């Protein structure tokens, strides 16, 4: 009986996937709260952002969009049982994720050393740039770990149901982070002046 019940728990993937969606909802609330914080701060004190955002953010946006495309290709490959292709695209996504991470850090470097827009700033609107991108990067870090675990299991001979489940979980998370970054970037651009 025990074994049966264990089995049943494992089949329970639908409920777990739903849990992922709820997690996405909590993240949405987090970023909504941060951006509303920005609006309240901005509206209350007349401290505008007044910074030309570094070019690097454009490149990182392109990179993360590209990584979403490669992850989509990986999912398609997984559904078509082309596992070598799935692995290739997963690795591509992973490296694009790392590249995104690096470009964001570079953007911070540009902000700090080239533009003298510091994190510790009497104008907290500018600190918010770091908070937005930093909280997003924290999520990206977590997503990279999820991605790694999916890559790892793609080398093992796991049941296709499980493989597709892992792909779906990863995709939900990754595409969401893609969308969040676009949201944050557009939000910053709209409040640039």
């Amino acid at each position, binding site marked *: *009986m025990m074994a049966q019940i264990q089995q049943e*728990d494992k089949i329970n993937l*639908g409920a777990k996937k739903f849990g992922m969606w709820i997690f996405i909802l909590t993240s949405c*609330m987090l970023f909504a*709260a941060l951006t509303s914080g920005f609006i309240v*701060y901005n509206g*209350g*004190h007349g401290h505008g952002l007044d910074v030309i955002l570094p070019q690097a953010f454009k490149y990182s946006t392109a990179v993360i969009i590209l990584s979403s495309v490669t992850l989509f290709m990986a999912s398609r490959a997984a559904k078509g049982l082309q596992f070598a292709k799935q692995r290739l695209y997963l690795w591509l996504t992973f490296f694009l994720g790392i590249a995104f991470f690096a470009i964001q850090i570079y953007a911070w470097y540009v902000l700090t050393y080239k533009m003298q827009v510091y*994190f510790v700033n009497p104008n907290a609107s500018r600190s918010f740039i770091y908070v937005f991108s930093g909280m997003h990067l924290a999520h990206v870090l977590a997503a990279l770990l999820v991605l790694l675990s999916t890559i790892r299991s793609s080398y093992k001979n796991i049941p296709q149901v499980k493989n597709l489940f892992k792909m779906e979980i990863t995709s939900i998370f990754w595409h969401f982070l893609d969308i969040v970054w676009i949201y944050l970037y557009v939000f910053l651009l709209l409040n640039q002046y």
Partner: protein
Amino acid sequence: MSTLAVHDHGIVHHEEGHEHHHKQTFLNTYVFSQDHKMIAKQFLITGITMAFIGMCLSLLFRIQLAYPDKAFPLLETLLGRFAPGGRLSPDFYMSLVTIHGTIMVFFVLTAGLSGTFANLLIPLQIGARDMASPFVNMLSYWFFLMASLVMVSSFLVQKGPASGGWTIYPPLSALPKAMPGSGEGMTLWLISMVLFIASSLMGGINYISTILNMRTKGMDLWKMPLTIWALFLTAVLGVLAFPVLVAGVVLLIFDRSFGTSFYLSDIVLNGQVQPFEGGSPILFQHLFWFLGHPEVYIIIMPAMGLSSEILAVNSRKPIFGYHAMVYSLIGISVLSFIVWGHHMFVTGMNPFLGGVFMITTLIIAVPSAVKTFNWLATLWRGNIRFTPGMLFAIGMVSFFISGGLTGIFLGNAALDINLHDTYFVVAHFHLVMGSAAIFGMLAGVYHWFPKMFRRMMDERLGYLHFWITFIGAYLVFFPMHFMGLDGVPRRYYAFTEFESMKHWLTVNVFITWAAIMSGVAQVVFIANFIYSIFFGKKATQNPWNANTLEWTTPVEHLHGNWPGEIPTVYRWPYDYSKPGHEEDFIPQTVPYSQTMSSNSVHDFEDNPAGLEEYTKWAVANKVNEQVK
């Protein structure tokens, strides 16, 4: 999926050991358990421990309030540097108030209440083997325990725990040097809270996913007991509100430790001008109360759900207005997100905005009143069985009414500006949120104790516990209304320091003794609780003759809850005293075909085939369709 049959339980039993990590060891049964029933017990016992600590803290500061000028050498022995000369130090008094609030709001009435009953009742009442993710569920408990330990450990640091109030408003909380409690104590508070939020989110995600995905066959949303509805909406509120607190706390941590100016501006500390500029402490209040207000519903809604269930079972009547109960819970949940400003009427808010928040706040009175009237109507002419659980549920209704009424006072901006931060507020929320929620929780403990520990709690001790606590709580909190109306501010260390407050000292003495009396009653409860776990009367499978699914599981716990197939659900959970049926309850698992004599046309509203069968049967048996 959860309804998959497990047919061969007879055969496979002796095969259990074949995969050795499934073996039952002490560690995976009692400590790192992934079974929802064990996790519920872990939450309950941790919650009760935290409640006891929180209560002792309150008794300490009550002693200070009653006898501000007296020295108690025992206090110095117990608390050392926090009570020099046998009198609490003012800083430590503030710490006590802060940690009492934090522990009670978050650790007892959020995690202890939701954590216990969501874990216990969700799988059992919807008919699931376990939570959606038992592993994440286990993590949720361990994060909660770590958070509790960190919070309590803040008493061990040199300068004492956080002392800026449970709302940790900056600038006090953002400047480590502002006062002793803002140093390491505050840091520990923040660490504890981050762990707590993680725990709460993991729990909430699991609860929602389980309820929406894993109900047994026949258990549609409108057949769920109100407990499940309440726990579901509570989890939704938590999932939406806690991330906002994360945002607030993250910015606070940056201000504290990195020197940013999100919340800080124009600060002079010990005669030195600080470099912070342009921040807004009000921003923190917005972020905090966007969580903070839904939080009070996170606290009260599980208590409402538990009480609804217990009131119906022990009145032997269907809950009055089941749909209205659900819709009012939904109404409260939605409204809870657009009222946070009523905590901020005195922050210099635009009066027009204040007016908006006032209107939304007052609208909450409508669903709350719907619930109250429905509880009373459920009791009305019921066959009431006064079990201890029932008494506590009635007590919950009582406190909800008497505390809720003052909410209408405080929701009015014009009155709140006078009453803000006075004892009137203290009286209000201790009745409506504190006492009502703790009574709901205790009702739940008495009612579901047999499900959790397979034994019954002692009834007579339960009655003793109820009456002393019920009377005690009113004696403690009711006089505070008058202090508040007289303008006595909350959180003041010694009333003797102020001419206008001196005459309230006698009332403080009275309140303190009432609090001590109620505290002793909780010792009775804990003794009863521990004694009954080991030596209580053995419980039967369905000791309260209740309809819900948890009472169809065997008394002995087993992983997966039901030995065979999960039962199918055919009817709503409130068929108590249904006319025409020989017993006064019909469990949810009994199909209508077995209860022909008690069926009515109303039972087949969305079931034409059933209606046809029933009409045939009725004609054959010459039953008048209008039989009531």
